[in-house]
């Protein structure tokens, strides 16, 4: 193989780049026995999964889910309550939480994906706010603002925990990449671009959309359940509006580069959070200002939020 051939093949390796970077960081953490780095790598891996799970359905379909924390937080609370109240071990409570999130996704998708667009976006937002309110309303079960504490760890110590999160996360990332290259995803994209044509071509649009959204919700739930066990606690923030909004904005920023773009956006956010620690309470302002600048510049200058982001239906839009 000549160097020209090798260079020509480089773009095909780009989707693996975020995963390689995370693996390298994990190796450094292990080699240097750096607890802080291990914790950061774990959080980064799980945050990448949040954004990738959003991207899995929303980017190909063109629908925007404004309430992704419903699945992340719902699964985290489910895993936490199963572990602390019923003594279910993490290897069972995490998949159970992911399954619950996938079921929720199937219900929400099944109810709304015939209409899509703004109805879907607002319903996901309303359902997520409901979960946020339920945390306080049923504080006996959910622990209110303090959340659920004392959740058993995934493994003994931060390094094995990082290893478990990395292994599950990498498998999920590979699965997301495979889904984006699958025929099902192609049908999802086709339906997002021209639903009538997709139906005419024999695609079962509603069924495919619902299944893909359930998969996306299940992946978000998997990350949420892992986060609950890795952190040892679940707070109301995991089911909150801020997390939902950040995931949407990161998903839109990364949408132009597929799954890898979503992963880069998630990694970039965690890195930015580390850089902005000295700013204290102002880190969220600067982060959201950067989001606004990026999206504003892209929308107003280039005329589209991100390359590859399809057009959702808005009520009344001609």
């Amino acid at each position, binding site marked *: 193989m000549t160097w020209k051939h090798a260079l020509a093949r480089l773009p095909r390796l780009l989707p693996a780049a975020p995963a390689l970077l995370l693996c390298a960081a994990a190796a450094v953490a292990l080699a240097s026995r750096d607890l802080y780095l291990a914790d950061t790598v774990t959080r980064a891996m799980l945050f990448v999964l949040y954004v990738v799970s959003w991207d899995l359905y929303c980017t190909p379909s063109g629908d925007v889910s404004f309430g992704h924390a419903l699945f992340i937080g719902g699964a985290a609370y489910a895993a936490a309550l199963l572990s602390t109240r019923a003594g279910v071990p993490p290897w069972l409570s995490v998949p159970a939480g992911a399954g619950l999130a996938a079921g929720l996704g199937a219900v929400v998708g099944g109810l709304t994906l015939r209409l899509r667009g703004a109805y879907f976006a*607002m*319903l996901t937002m*309303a359902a997520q706010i409901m979960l946020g*309110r339920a945390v306080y309303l049923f504080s006996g079960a959910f622990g209110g603002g303090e959340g659920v504490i004392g959740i058993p760890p995934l493994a003994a110590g931060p390094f094995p925990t990082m290893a478990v999160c990395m292994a599950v996360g990498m498998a999920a990332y590979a699965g997301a990449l495979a889904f984006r290259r699958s025929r099902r995803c192609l049908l999802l994209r086709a339906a997002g671009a021209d639903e009538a044509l997709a139906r005419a071509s024999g695609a079962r649009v509603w069924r495919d959309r619902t299944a893909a959204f359930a998969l996306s919700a299940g992946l978000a739930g998997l990350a949420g359940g892992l986060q609950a066990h890795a952190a040892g606690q679940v707070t109301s923030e995991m089911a909150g509006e*801020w997390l939902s*909004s950040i995931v949407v904005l990161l998903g839109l920023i990364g949408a132009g580069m597929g799954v890898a773009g979503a992963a880069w956006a998630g990694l970039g956010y965690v890195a930015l959070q580390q850089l902005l620690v000295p700013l204290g309470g102002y880190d969220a*302002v600067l982060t*959201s200002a950067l989001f*606004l600048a990026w999206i504003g510049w892209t929308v107003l200058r280039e005329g589209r939020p991100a390359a590859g982001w399809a057009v959702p239906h808005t009520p009344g*839009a001609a």
Partner: protein
Amino acid sequence: MTASVLLETLVRGSGYALVALGFAAVLGAARVLNLSHALSFLFGAYATYAGQALLRGALPAAAAVAVATVGATALAALAGWLFFRLALRPTLDRPEHALVLCMAVNVFATAALQAALGGRALAVPPVLEGAVRVSGAMLLRQELLVIPVVVLVFPLLHHLLSHTSYGRAVRALAQNPQAALLAGVDRDRVLAGVVAAAAALAGLAGALQAPLRVLAPAMWLPVLVKSFAVVTVGGLGSLRGALGAAYLLAALEVLTSHALTEASSEFVSLAAVVMVLAAGAGRVRERHAFA
């Protein structure tokens, strides 16, 4: 009991109606889902707080709040007009992009307010002191203030849309934008007015609500979701429909709060919103914009 439920429904529904009327008008005329509309509610509440704090030394407390309420409404209108010029106008032909941009604006506004004010609980004194007793239930006079406001605003809006050349231009844009443009309607000028008026109404709702609740940066979110549900039930661009749906949602919340607790009323109303959105009632009624 019945009288107090009716009055509470009127109070709560009037607050929702003030926000939802503007939301319905913008959605109907501009065909843009302005997710930042609920920020005007937030803006009105915080501007009233800031205004009364500035004027407190110079005027009696109630007068300071009254002046601040008027000022906040005017500032909300100005902010709405600016928002239209800077963000909505460039995305008028791409409503889905407006959706994303509005979300980014909302996130930034929430973060900025949170950072500026921290966890401080801000309280605004009422314009009208005291309370009235209706069928054993106590209602603050400040709460009742919103009812005459809606009684004044709704006929005014109806008259504006039905009997003025500006209203005809708004309806023309809502029903057939291409034909309206060919007939010489200045789309940008007309829509800037609609967005500014909608922002003023939401700002006024926020200003009137400011003395009744603890101000929080994220309080725009339930307002937005409920407004969307109201518009979904009431029909796109239908002011009468929005008004009716606002009172319907309020009635559900009030009945729930009487039967259970106030905290559970919002949960139940959100559940109703989810069911309404799932049913997609507004989709069926889209073609009736301002008809």
